[in-house]
């Protein structure tokens, strides 16, 4: 069965420090992986997706199929990065195509 695991419920770093939000998944096919972000009192929004291989707001994430991971990284965290981050998976067949499977989220706090 498909599953997304974010082992850290809470993560705190100081401004300027590197940050890594962990995400592991289980899926038997070739999934698409995403990171969504929800800033305080704002809507959930897409941050980045693995097929784009782009950097958004300084964040990058590489899909590691061997380790079934999609960790989100930023070399120098900023206070405005404080938010809830969700890792999500979309399957490649059948009913898994239509929906996203989300992890439980990691609340990132960046201290000044």
């Amino acid at each position, binding site marked *: 069965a498909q599953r997304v695991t974010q082992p850290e419920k809470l993560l705190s770093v100081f401004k300027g420090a590197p940050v890594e939000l962990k995400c592991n998944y289980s899926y038997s096919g070739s999934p698409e992986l995403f990171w969504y972000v929800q800033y305080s009192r704002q809507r959930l929004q897409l941050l980045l997706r693995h097929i784009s291989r782009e950097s958004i707001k300084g964040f990058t994430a590489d899909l590691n199929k061997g380790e079934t991971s999609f960790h989100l990284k930023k070399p120098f965290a900023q206070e405005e990065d404080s938010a809830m981050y969700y890792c999500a998976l979309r399957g490649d067949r059948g009913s898994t195509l*239509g929906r996203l499977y989300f992890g439980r989220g990691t609340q990132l706090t960046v201290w000044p």
Partner: protein
Amino acid sequence: GAGVSQSPSNKVTEKGKDVELRCDPISGHTALYWYRQSLGQGLEFLIYFQGNSAPDKSGLPSDRFSAERTGGSVSTLTIQRTQQEDSAVYLCASSLGSGTAHYEQYFGPGTRLTVT
């Protein structure tokens, strides 16, 4: 243009009552999704529509939950005989389509349901 809208933004109801939550997707978006966001559970998928049909209802937690979509646009999520464990934020999302090509899902602001 306008994003996904949901109403009401907040709903407080007594245990045992029925509630209806509404979602207006982005115009032209054929796919519509309902998720539930609760403390400790993260985001749970409930149901999704492609047009007016629901290919995947697997996430509905019980037969007290139902959803419909008419005219390929507005959707209503109905919870009958509400229970305290139904308290959560109900999120709606829409996308241009679904299937083999992934279209970004755009989320609404959510409806916060509190069952007392």
